Each structure stands twice: as structure tokens, then as C-alpha cells.
């Protein structure tokens, strides 16, 4: 005689009982009215749950999602375009400066000895800049530079957050 737990009944409903347990269960149910009732109740629950109908969203749901999607991707495209154009402008300016410097030096100096002198001048200039930077990095100066940098970071952070807040406000207006 098997002990008829709820788990066995559930497994029976799910068709997960092996043939041996299945025949044992059927035998048992023939002799037990209370367990047959339990099974009938469970089957009723199973059938009723199978009849569940999905709830429906409002009629214009899809339109709302798609319009939100379009607006969001428009803002995203605008942001991307803005960042891309700013980067391009900076890159062009940087390239122009570099090209200008090289053109200036090489167009004025035609022979090789003079070119070497120009390069040496550049190297001397870079060495001077690095040595003056080294001079700045004393214990006293470094704390001043640190303070200035921290202050700049705070200001930049504030400006960034303000910009974000502004963008968010604009986005919510659009949406």
C-alpha cells in the first residue's frame, strides 16, 4: 500500500509517475474515497488554472511604447552626433596645429643641417618645459596644484550634473 502524498498526486497530474507507481496509485484510488476526492479536487484546480485568460493592456499600448522608443532613439542619436562632432572639431584643430608647426619649420629651413637645428630647438624646448614642471613638483607646490585640480574637478562635476539634469528635463518634456 502506498502512502498517498500530495506530491504523488501532483506528479500524477504532470504525468511524471513511473508505470509501477502509476498502477499502484490506480489500485489505491479504487479503495480510497477520500484520496479519490483529493485527486479530483487537484485535477479541478489544474483544469481551472489551464483556463486562465491573459489580462489586456490598454488599446494604445503598442503605440505608446513605439513613440517612446522613437523619441528615445532620437535623443540618443542627437547625443551621439553632438559628441562625434565635438570630437571631430577637436581632432581637426589638433591636426591643424601639428601640421602648421611642421610646415612652418620645414618650409623656412631648406637644408638638412638647419632641419637638425630646428629639431634640436624643439628638444631643448621640451627639456625646458619638463624641467620647469619638475621644479613645480616641490612639496609645497604639489599641495597647491592638488587643491587647484580638486577644485577644477568639483566645478567640472557640478557642471556635468547640471548638464545631465537639464538633458533629463528636456527628455521628460519630450516624452
Amino acid at each position, binding site marked *: 500500500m502506498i502512502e498517498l502524498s500530495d506530491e504523488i498526486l501532483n506528479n500524477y497530474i504532470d504525468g511524471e509517475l513511473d508505470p509501477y507507481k502509476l498502477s499502484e496509485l490506480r489500485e489505491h484510488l479504487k479503495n480510497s474515497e477520500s484520496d479519490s476526492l483529493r485527486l479530483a479536487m487537484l485535477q479541478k484546480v489544474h483544469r481551472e488554472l489551464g483556463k*486562465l485568460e491573459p489580462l489586456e493592456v490598454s488599446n494604445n499600448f503598442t503605440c505608446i*511604447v513605439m513613440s517612446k522608443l522613437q523619441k528615445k532613439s532620437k535623443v540618443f542619436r542627437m547625443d551621439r552626433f553632438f559628441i562625434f562632432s565635438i570630437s571631430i572639431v577637436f581632432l581637426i584643430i589638433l591636426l591643424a596645429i601639428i601640421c602648421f608647426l611642421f610646415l612652418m619649420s620645414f618650409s623656412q629651413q631648406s637644408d638638412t643641417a638647419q632641419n637638425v637645428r630646428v629639431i634640436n630647438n624643439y628638444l631643448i624646448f621640451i627639456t625646458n618645459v619638463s624641467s620647469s614642471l619638475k621644479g613645480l613638483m616641490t612639496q609645497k607646490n604639489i599641495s597647491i596644484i592638488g587643491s587647484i585640480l580638486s577644485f577644477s574637478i568639483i566645478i567640472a562635476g557640478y557642471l556635468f550634473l547640471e548638464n545631465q539634469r537639464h538633458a533629463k528635463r528636456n527628455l521628460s518634456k519630450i516624452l
Partner: protein
Amino acid sequence: MKNLTDIEIIASVKKGNHSDYTLLIDKYKNKEFSLLVRMLKNEMESEEILQDCFLKAFKSLDNFRQESKFSTWFYRIVYNTALTRLSSKKREIELEMSSLENHLDIKSEYDYQETEQKDVSKFIHKLIEQLPVKYASVINMYYLDNMSCEEISQAMETSLANIKVMLHRSRNALKDQLIKNNYAEEIL
């Protein structure tokens, strides 16, 4: 009406045919809405969250690697978003979801009215509304969306054994309520 599979729709959307995303929305909106309403017990809030979930899914379509079905992947988004909303509302879901050791006990507020009418279907449907969040989610996915226990376990990020236990416990709780409220005669 185009008759495309989820994978074909996603491929089309990724190619730039954003309007095809409406096919996915139309396919899943009501089922997911049912799940959210059962979890959050609020239709307006559920609709708002569902909109966010569709936007989130659209944004993450590139991350969908087709290791599982789109439905399972999307269910995970919806389910996790609903849980986040629930926890942000400081509901005691952990307690309500009840650890598997706890006995699942639902009370019927409708005993009095429904006993007179003896409408079993109505009675069961009212009881489902009282199921704890996780149990209601399992019932919704299993019966309404015809998901297998394996798919549900993927969506809910829980073990297969836990899903089966939750499914069985939900049925048992409903069955116990039927017996308790003398519905035996109606059924037999």
C-alpha cells in the same frame, strides 16, 4: 500580418526595421501584463513598468545571444524589474514569497459570498490573486504562457526543483481551500 518567429523579428529589428518591434510587443504584451498585475496588484503601475521593460529590451537586443528563447529572456527582464519595484516599495516580499520551508497558507476573503454561489471557477480565480508573488508568477508562466518548468527556472533564476515545489504547493493550497469551503459536491 507578418508571420515571423521571434528570432526573425529580432534580426529584422537589428537591421534597422524598428517598426517590426511592434510584432514582439503585440505578441507578449498581454501575457507579461498578466504576470505584472499578479505580482504588483496594480494595473496602471504594471502597464508603466511593462512599457519600461519593452524599452529596456529594445536597448539590450544586441546583448540577446539567443542562448535561450526570447520569451524566457524577456520574462527575466520583466520579472526582475517587478521584483526591483516591489523591493523599492519596501514590501516584505522575502517574507511573503516565503521560504520553501514555510507552509503556503492562503485565506479566502470570499468564503461567505462564494459559498452561496458555488462557482468553483470564480472561487479559484479569486484565490489565485492571493497567492504570494513567486507562486503567482509560476502559475502565470506555467498555465498562461505554457512555459515548461525548465524555462520558468531560467526566467526566475531559481532551481528546477524549487519551481516544481512552488507549482505543487500552489495547486495544493488551492485544493485545500476547495475542500475547506465544501466544494467537493460541486466537483464530484
